[in-house]
């Protein structure tokens, strides 16, 4: 069987690398945590350093302390040292996932939204939550069935935690329309009934325009999202798991929320790579 190799970047204040790595392994990938400098040092000695990998994950955290806008300095560093390698990686049909700080990095780098295969333009932004503060809360997101996104195939609704101070998705109107038109809006914050939150707080925890929680590039192979799928890697991560478990005990069934849905996003990635 083909080995699916994934790389999770670490260092400089990133902090979700262990659990992201764990999820990739659970999903069947062979994952490696690689320090940003390790890969940059490697580029000085050899070319095409990303070639052995199939899935590249920008995980959550506070890269460079987020002092000059979340993900801004990380994007600058990567553009400067790894820009060509990243573009080449995408051209090879491989997958890039950005979670939280990783999503912020992707939009500041320009890998998202990647209109017309141009992966260098900053077109959208993730800015300060409308409340002005960091928030940790579980949200429900609805998945756009018409999106080309590889990572969300077969998913309709997912519950995941968000944990950020700068997660408000913003784009000028025309850009937003283009994203919607292309099916690039993958994930929207939703009410408990599954309908879009329409800005209602805290279901939409940050004031994101059009309740955007995650977008992909037009190919569906680059995906960025604010919620943390890697934080739902076991059913006991779910905030109401004791409630569902007591229900399971009395009626003997396993209820849907007890399935750690975060893993599916990683499984989809592995499945896609296995199929190409």
């Amino acid at each position, binding site marked *: 069987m083909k080995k699916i190799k994934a790389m999770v970047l670490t260092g400089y204040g990133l902090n979700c690398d262990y659990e992201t790595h764990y999820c990739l392994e659970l999903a069947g990938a062979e994952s490696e945590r690689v320090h940003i400098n390790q890969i940059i040092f490697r580029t000085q000695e050899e070319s095409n350093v990303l070639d052995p990998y199939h899935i590249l994950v920008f995980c959550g955290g506070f890269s*460079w302390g987020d002092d000059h806008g979340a993900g801004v300095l990380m994007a600058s560093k990567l553009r400067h040292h790894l820009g060509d390698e990243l573009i080449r990686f995408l051209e090879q049909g491989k997958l890039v996932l950005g979670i939280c700080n990783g999503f912020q990095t992707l939009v500041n780098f320009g890998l998202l939204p990647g209109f017309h295969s141009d992966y260098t333009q900053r077109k959208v932004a993730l800015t300060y939550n409308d409340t002005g503060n960091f928030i940790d809360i579980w949200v429900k997101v609805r998945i756009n069935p018409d999106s080309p996104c590889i990572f969300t195939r077969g998913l309709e609704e997912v519950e995941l935690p968000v944990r950020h101070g700068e997660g408000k998705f913003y784009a000028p109107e025309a850009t937003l329309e283009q994203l919607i038109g292309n099916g690039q809006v993958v994930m929207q914050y939703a009410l408990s009934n599954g309908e879009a939150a329409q800005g209602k707080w805290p279901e939409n925890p940050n004031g994101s325009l059009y309740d955007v929680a995650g977008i992909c590039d037009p190919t569906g192979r680059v995906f960025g999202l604010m919620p943390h799928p890697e934080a739902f890697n076991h059913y006991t991560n779910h905030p109401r798991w004791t409630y569902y478990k*007591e229900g399971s005990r009395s009626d003997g069934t396993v209820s849907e929320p007890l399935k750690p849905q975060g893993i599916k996003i990683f499984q989809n990635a592995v499945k896609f790579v296995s199929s190409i």
Partner: protein
Amino acid sequence: MAARLEIRLKKHLFDAEGEGVRKKASQYFGIQLEGVRTIRVLTIDASLSPSQLERIRTEIFTNPVTEESSYSPTARDFDWIIWVGFRPGVRDTAGSTAVEAIEDLLGITFKPGEAVYTSKIYEIKGRIKKEEVEKVVKELLANELIQQWKIISPEDWNPANGIGFPVQKVELRHEPQVSTIAIDSDEQLRRLSVERNLALHDQDIPVIRAYFLRDDIREERKKVGLDLPTDVELEYISQARSDHCNHNTFKGLFHYRDLFTGEERDVDNLFRTCIEQPTLENMKQKDWVISVLWDNAGVGRFDNDYYYAITGETHNSPSNMEAYGGALTGIVGVYRDIMGTGKGAKLILGTYAYCVGHRDYSGPLKPHLHPRRLLDGVVEGVRDGGNKSGIPTPYGLLLFDDSFIGKCLVFVTAMGIMPALVAGEPSHKKTTSPGDLIVMCGGRVGKDGIHGVTAASEGYSQHTPAGHVQIGDPYTQKKMHDFLLEARDEGLIAFITDCGGGGLSSAVGESARFSNGARVDLDKVPLKYEGLDQWEIWVSESQERMIVAVKPEHLNRFMALSQKHAVESTVIGEYNDSGYLKLDYKGKTCAYIRMDFLQSDFPQWEFEAHWIPPDKRGLTEPVIAEPQDHGQLLKEMLSRPNICSRNWIARQYDHEVQGGSVIKPLVGRDLDIPSDAAVVRPILERTGGIVISQALNPHYSLIDTYHMTAATIDEAVRKVIAVGGDPEHLGGVDNFCWPSIQYDPEKNPDGKYKAAQLVRSNWALRDYCLAYGIPLLSGKDSMYIDGNVEGPFGERRKVSGLPTLLFTVSSVIEDITKCVTLDPKRSGELIYILGLTRNELGGGEFYQLMGHIGLNVPKVKAEEVLPLYKALARAISDGLVASCHAVGRGGLGVHLALMAMASGLGMEIDLDLVPREGPVKTFQLLYSESCGRFLVTVAPELKEKFEALLKALPFSLIGQVIPDPQLMVKADNGNTLINENIQNLKDSWLRPFGELI
């Protein structure tokens, strides 16, 4: 010439930060602003070309989607401009990361002295007076201890120059020098100690003089070119002998006397008799205890392959002066304790507990920071410290009492995990050996934090030096954390400890005891700026540093890893077995002290401790007849500041990072009721969990600190058991915060009573740790929670905080899927109460509501409650329990309501069925705070199994969960006392701080 870059959100975009300032100005001071916009300012004090400046502006610092920026002033259409920047020398992390980014993009290196400084402009719209603007600045936007500001009106605005070019550079223009200190007489040394702020203790002075006057010592010193003691040496001794480092109070001799009975007892060394001995005793039965009583944190066994580390700290004095910086520095500091435990542990969680004055305090005193502002700052400091470190903060406490207006309490606790073996060696063991290199990792050294330890050992006064206020830097520390774990796993760390209180003097001084000697080149220590005296380098508490002993053969690899992680590491000396600590500066010796000197016979501190039993102090039970409106009373109880929802704090803290969250800080149907304890799964591949809970009950100290302590230990234990913790594995952490116990007829007239309170508290600690089998894995004492606060007439009044013990309990759980939360799950579940209720409302919430203290403080009967705890733990592990909750502050009424609110379901309760001892009136049943009690719900089909486990123990079935969301409480033969809608109760509970986000 410096360049000033101003960056702001585009005009049509919502400015959340500015809006926050507008709201607070209105809510806090009634100052109505029309609008506030913020501008980020970078002053680039480096020789960059115009094209380079333009490149960094567009490529790094301006988001083209949301921001606009300019090197010219961007302020427009304002009524006031406020500029706020740091004072020189205050840690400016954003300035440093800006330099990093610029150097990386342009491929340049900043020259010495070149830097980037960050600051902020607030563009204010609104017709307000200058005095009002000043109030907003001083009481909301800036703290003069660390920040400076300008207020500019449109008339004074120079559109070409704007705010000017703020460069907060430190220029000391000082040639470092060592001075010697005369020791002709005790009196002379005492005077010099005061003049130089050395804080040498009077009793120590003769011992110090005798040492330096000894012939053999003088002979030895002559050989290295020294004669009289140097300032470096005396600063070192002062740090090492401070109460903060040496725990002189806890090691003191207490002459305890009960003034009523006349009973007298001498208590020699509270630490040894009440902490060390019981812990050693408990360890005989508890083979899971791996390492205690010597390292930066205690170590317990998580499973066969992993150990956990735990410790707790306080950061009261700095937080009291600069809340954000103090709390941030505090939490990242306690993280370093874990990083420096054994050969280094990975952080897995942090917790907090804050004791502050009431948020709406409007009394006559004018503390340096109003409690509301102080709490805001402390909350934010721990938020940034935890979140930016990638360490979950899944648990915390908050307690309001105006006695904390003198000095607030900021407790921070941390846990870590490490493999039992690293590179084939036990992870919890470490030592320094002759030849090991002393490596300093992390931050650089500046003037910050000088005399922090000695300041923490004194009450707060207007003369307290502000120099020890710092702002922690979680970014730098997170990089170091990742680096050190990698170095540890490669077996490169022989010894590690953090540079905390006392700086290098403590870290090197203490680690050199293992090898019995060390030599340091102070001139090799990397500095933030030139001009520090040698003694300052030695005692500076500049943050984010660790000291590591590295074998010479490992140095290259160690440094390579350091470079990979972008962490600065420097060899500053080496350990040896010379028996001396020797400090050199550019080849010249400036300190030479025998290693055994600090272990020599310094006089023990002595305290008179006078106790008067509470009833002899005039405390009595209040006379209260049965309330008639129990529904309203319950709502009033639920909205009390120490009971109501404080969810806004927990929500700001990332409690999910690392992916192992099991029991979160807020639970229940709407995820808004505080959990008894937190549980995490530290090793993702395994199903074992770590449990932690904490308790504090300082109001019981008003009656008797013995029972305060017992109740606090019991509460923390019950909360751990309530979620499924193992009663055979209870690790304790004792954090004492006490007002000064040094009697002084003028400055501390009740010092003898406070000393007796401390003794009694320690007795309870000893008694209950032995009874419950709790080894004390770690602990700290923080004395002097007193402040001299300004009153309305220019007078200063001493305010002493209530004697407080924060007790933390850690436990493990073999299978996290057996954990339980406090919310009943299904209607029909049976509601049980475990434990006896007594007439014990003294010091509790109900009496506080009535304006009384009372006398009947809750007392813990260990032999009565422990079998119950074990039986309950068994029931939980057998899967028989649907929900479980420890009854704490506010008693049964409050905790039934919390459980019902968590479930969204109703409850039918018959108080007549509550097991009790002695006569207990109806309102007493509802609000007594008797210890040892749990509320449990059980599915009806499990009734028999559950009851069989509890046979012969005090418990009772008191009601059941009903679908109708009403809390219905009956008493006195079916008389309905309470019939309240759950949502109404919850509204009362949420209301006090409901607006805060």
